[in-house]
Every structure is written in structure tokens, then in C-alpha cells.
């Protein structure tokens, strides 16, 4: 790692490698604090609901960004992780009677292990083959859920009656948006902090980025390609599984719809608009798209069409997403 950091220490594209110190961490937590005061101020349960969705989506795209943006692995099975987390945790708490909080954590761990299983064949493949393989898993997943109806997945009807979270006598029912707001905010802010400020700042982040930019060179310096990519899949799946588990307990219903085109498209648009591999790109994307999606609900059928057009246009006009505007601004004003 020391050799690599010397190698990368020269003048560079700000989007390539980010060193995040105390200052950035403090501004991150200030942002979280602002959001939590918002939680006290906002009374409207619809707005709270949208923000809760924003937090859950922020976790999902963080997990995806880790693999797609930082490690450069074309993984398209992210919503499969989301679904496994949702179904795993939902079945644990609804059918096996596990405590919901415990079930959310276990759901994350189960998904992490599933991520390892998907990673093993993926890491034998290269480039687009991974995209094809993982997308095939994504497309085959709804059929699998219908097939395993006898295990308690609920088939087409979905998994119903997931109990609400109960922390020391406090019931987090889906109606109590205020509790849920803080609960989702706490989990999302911790998870996102751990991914961007801890995991990706340490050895692993540098290793993944060096592997993404030149795998042969990184390997020649002794970076363990297999190990780090496996770990990246594990962390990404774990994080996304937690998001899925949260979502399942929040809505108290999981249907195969979460693997449908709409959710996949939403996550894609978040990544495309925000900009991958560049914190806080995808997080901004998650907020913009979730809110825009709700605003567009009035347009009915046009909503998905508009979102599709949004993906195409953003990729064409801003291939690196909205955060690249900030980088451009920095380049123009500081490096003139």
C-alpha cells in the first residue's frame, strides 16, 4: 500500500482518488445532524416517508458504488442482494419469530454470504462477462422466488405480515414515521460513513482503485486481487442486505416487485445522475431521484419513461454525474 500511495501521490484527477480526513468527516456528520433536526421539524408523514426511502436507497447505492464505482466490477445483481436481505430478514422475523432487530442484522449477514457465493464465479470471469452473468441472476431471481413458495417466500402475493421493530418497548410501526425516520437515518449514516470513510480509506479502498485502474500493475505490486474483490462483494452485499431488511420491516410487505424494472431503473438513475466512484455522488443521486420519482407520480405512466430519458440524457451530457460539476468548478477556479 505504501508503494501504491507513493505512486498515486502525484497530481491527479480529483475524482480518481480521494483522501478524506477529519474535515470531510466533520462536514459529513454536520449534514447528518441537519437531517436529524429536520426529523424534529417535519410533521408531514408523507415527507418523512420520502426521506426514509431516500435513506434506504442511499445505503443501496453506496453498496453498489463500492463494487461498480470503486472496484470497477460490473455487478448488476445489486437488487438481488436487496431482495435477499428483504426476504431473508422478513422470513426470519415473520415466519421464524426472530426479533426484528436481530433479523435485520442476520439478513445483512446472510446477504453478505450470498454475495460471496455470487462473487466466486464472477471473479473467474472478466469485464462484461460479469455484467452478463450477474444480470442473468437478476432476471432469473423472480422465477426463483415463485419456485420457492413452499419455503415461505409467499410467491407472487409476496411475504406479508412482517412484524414491526420493537426496541425496549418502543414500537416502530409503519405509521410512526418519526421513529422510523431516526432509525433509518442512524443506520444509513453509520453504514455510509463506514463504507466511504473507513473501508474505502484504508488499504482496501486503495487496493480496489489500483486494481480498477490497472489490474496487472497492481497485481505486480503484490495486491491480492482475488481477496480484495471477494471482500468488496461481501461488504457490498452485506450493506445492501441491511438496506433490504430495513425496507422489508418498514413496508412490512415484500413482493417480487422489488426485482422488477422499476426498482432497477431507479437505482440505475441514481448512479448515473449522481456519478459513480466519487463520494458523495451516488448519495446525492439517491436523494434527487427518490424525491423526483415521488414528484413525478402525478404524471402516471410517463414517470418511468421520463426516468429512462433522464438516464440517457445524464450519461450523454454528464458522463461522470452531477459531482463532476463540482470537480469542473474546482479545476476552473483553483488550477487555472
Amino acid at each position, binding site marked *: 500500500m505504501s508503494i501504491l500511495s507513493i505512486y498515486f501521490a502525484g497530481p491527479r484527477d480529483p475524482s480518481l482518488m480521494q483522501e478524506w480526513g477529519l474535515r470531510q468527516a466533520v462536514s459529513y456528520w454536520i449534514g447528518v445532524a441537519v437531517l436529524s433536526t429536520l426529523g424534529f421539524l417535519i410533521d408531514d408523514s408523507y415527507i418523512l416517508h420520502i426521506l426514509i426511502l431516500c435513506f434506504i436507497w442511499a445505503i443501496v447505492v453506496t453498496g453498489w458504488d463500492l463494487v*461498480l464505482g470503486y472496484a470497477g466490477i*460490473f455487478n448488476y445483481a445489486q437488487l438481488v442482494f436487496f431482495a435477499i436481505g428483504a426476504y431473508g430478514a422478513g422470513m426470519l422475523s415473520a415466519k421464524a419469530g426472530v426479533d426484528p432487530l436481530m433479523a435485520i442484522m442476520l439478513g445483512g449477514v446472510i446477504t453478505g454470504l450470498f454475495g460471496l457465493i455470487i462473487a466466486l*464465479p464472477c471473479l*473467474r*470471469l*472478466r*469485464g*462484461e*462477462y460479469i*455484467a*452478463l*452473468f450477474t*444480470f*442473468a*441472476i437478476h*432476471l*432469473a431471481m423472480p*422465477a*426463483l422466488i*415463485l*419456485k420457492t413458495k413452499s419455503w415461505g417466500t409467499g410467491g407472487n402475493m409476496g411475504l406479508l405480515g412482517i412484524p414491526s421493530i420493537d426496541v425496549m418497548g418502543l414500537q416502530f410501526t409503519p405509521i410512526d414515521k418519526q421513529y422510523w425516520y431516526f432509525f433509518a437515518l442512524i443506520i444509513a449514516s453509520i453504514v455510509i460513513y463506514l463504507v466511504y470513510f473507513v473501508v474505502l480509506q484504508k488499504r482496501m479502498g486503495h487496493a480496489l482503485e489500483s486494481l480498477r485502474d490497472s489490474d496487472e500493475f497492481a497485481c505486480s505490486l503484490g495486491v491480492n486481487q482475488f481477496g480484495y474483490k471477494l471482500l468488496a462483494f461481501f461488504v457490498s452485499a452485506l450493506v445492501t442486505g441491511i438496506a433490504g431488511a430495513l425496507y422489508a420491516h418498514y413496508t412490512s410487505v415484500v413482493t417480487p416487485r422489488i426485482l422488477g*424494472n422499476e426498482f432497477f*431503473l431507479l437505482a*440505475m*438513475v441514481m*448512479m*448515473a445522475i449522481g456519478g*459513480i466512484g466519487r463520494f458523495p455522488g451516488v448519495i446525492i443521486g439517491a436523494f434527487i431521484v427518490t424525491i423526483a420519482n415521488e414528484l413525478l407520480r402525478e404524471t402516471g*405512466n*410517463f414517470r*418511468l*419513461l421520463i*426516468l*429512462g*430519458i*433522464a*438516464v*440517457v440524457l445524464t*450519461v*450523454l451530457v454528464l*458522463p*461522470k454525474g452531477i459531482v463532476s460539476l463540482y470537480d469542473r468548478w474546482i479545476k476552473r477556479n483553483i488550477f487555472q
Partner: protein
Amino acid sequence: MQQFAEILSGGISQSAVYCLMAFGLSLVYGTARILNFAHGSLYTTGAYVAWVLTVGGLNLPMLAAMPLLVVILYLFGMVIEKTVVRPLRSTKDWKINTMMVTLGLAFILDNANSMIFGPIGKPMPPFFEGTVTIFGAVVSSHRIGVLIIALLIVIGLELFLQRTPFGQAVRAVSQDSEGAAQVGINANRIYSFTFGLSVVLTGIAGMLLAPLFLISPLGGWELFLKAFVIVVLGGLGSTRGAVVAAFILGLIESVVIFQLGASWTMPVWLVTLLIVLMIRPQGLMGVWAK
């Protein structure tokens, strides 16, 4: 046994259509290194255009509709390549970006189709009426016609790629686009040609299968998934690999349908794919892309 022969003949004609879809997908990847995630939606779009040209509006006879369909789809493919895909080639993460753009395009097409034609499937009459008996198996003439048309197209394409100067230029670009450019081949022209061609192929596949299934806005995704598996199994960019893999998987499919039921096709295919990729990660006839 007779029932099995029926399923087998159905499987073979199905494989021939898979060939058409996988051929285009593989050709575009082979030359332009672009994975077209809109392939399935273009399949559906092709079927809808065919529906409009024949029973759905213009009432043209089959022979007149087919050339018109080819021209429309080819131009459509060229326009997509020129406006959406090509500008991205110069960006840094163009591989991820082209995948995202084509996925976005897929959702645009899907939703536009479902808004224009409605969510309910459209029926299409078979092109050839009646049945044929082969070895005691009764097969609809439509399936035989599909098989013959698809096989003729695949053979024609293979001859075109091997024998004609333009086909050789396409192969040259797919082997080494810089080397091809040095000997004076306009790679951009080849890219839009292959993209247009792949849209035509998938659209024709959509038209040929439309009488067997209803045309519905999301109907292309299942076939796209199948074409995916075929292309990966055959080796990305290898059109011959795609043809071989289409028939292997098509036959596996008909055996699975006979023994286990249609819903087991995809799990068995995925397991087959997994086994092949474990032994040969680059697919049956693929070479690693540089």
C-alpha cells in the same frame, strides 16, 4: 416418443430464433465492444412494428411487410448508434456508460411501447397455416417456416461475413479495430452497420415468434435473458459460438420441458452456464477482449 419428437422439433425451431437474437448481440459486442441491454426491448419493438405493418394497421401482406420492417429497424438501429452510443466512446468509463445508456434506452422503449400499444398482449396470426408430419410428429407449418427463415438468415450472414469484402471488414474490426483503421477501414461505419444489423435481426426474431407468444411490452426480457446466456456460453463476440450455443441450449430446453416442465428451463440453463464458465471462463469459442 412421438411427443418427444414434437417437443424436439419445437426446440430446434426455437433455437433457430435464439440464434438470430444472439447473433446480433454477439456481433455488436464483437465489433464495437458494446453490450446492448436494449436488445430485448428492440425485439419487442420489432414485433410491434411488424404488427402495425401487417394486421395491426396497414394490412400489408407478409412479403411486402418484411423488407419494410428490415429498412425501418436498420435505420432505427443506425440512429441509436449515432446519437446515443457513439458520443460515449470517447469518455473514460465508456463501458459502464454504454451499458447504462442502453439500459435506459430499454426502459424508454418498454414504457413507450406499453403507452402506445397498451399493456395487454397483441395476438398475431401465424404466417403459414396448417401442420406438417415429420416422423410421426405433428408440427405446425409456422414452426417449420420459422426454422427455415432463421436458418437461411444465419447461413446468409455467415457467408456475408466470410466471403464479401464488407463482411471481411467487419471481421477485421472485431479482431483489431486499430489495425483495421490503419488499412483504411472506417470503423465508425462498421459500428453503425453492425448495430443496425443487430436491431434488424432481433426485430425479425420478434416478428417470427410473435404468433407463438402474444406481443407484450415486457415480453422481450425473457428472450433477452436467453440470448444473454447463449452469448456468454458461446463466448462474447463469437458469432459462431453463439450459433452453436443456441442449438445446445435449445435442445437442452426441449429436454427440460419434456422431463421437468417449462419453468425449469432457466435454472437448468444457468447451471449449464455456470459449469461451462467454471471450466472455460471465456465461453465455448470466445477469446478474452483486450
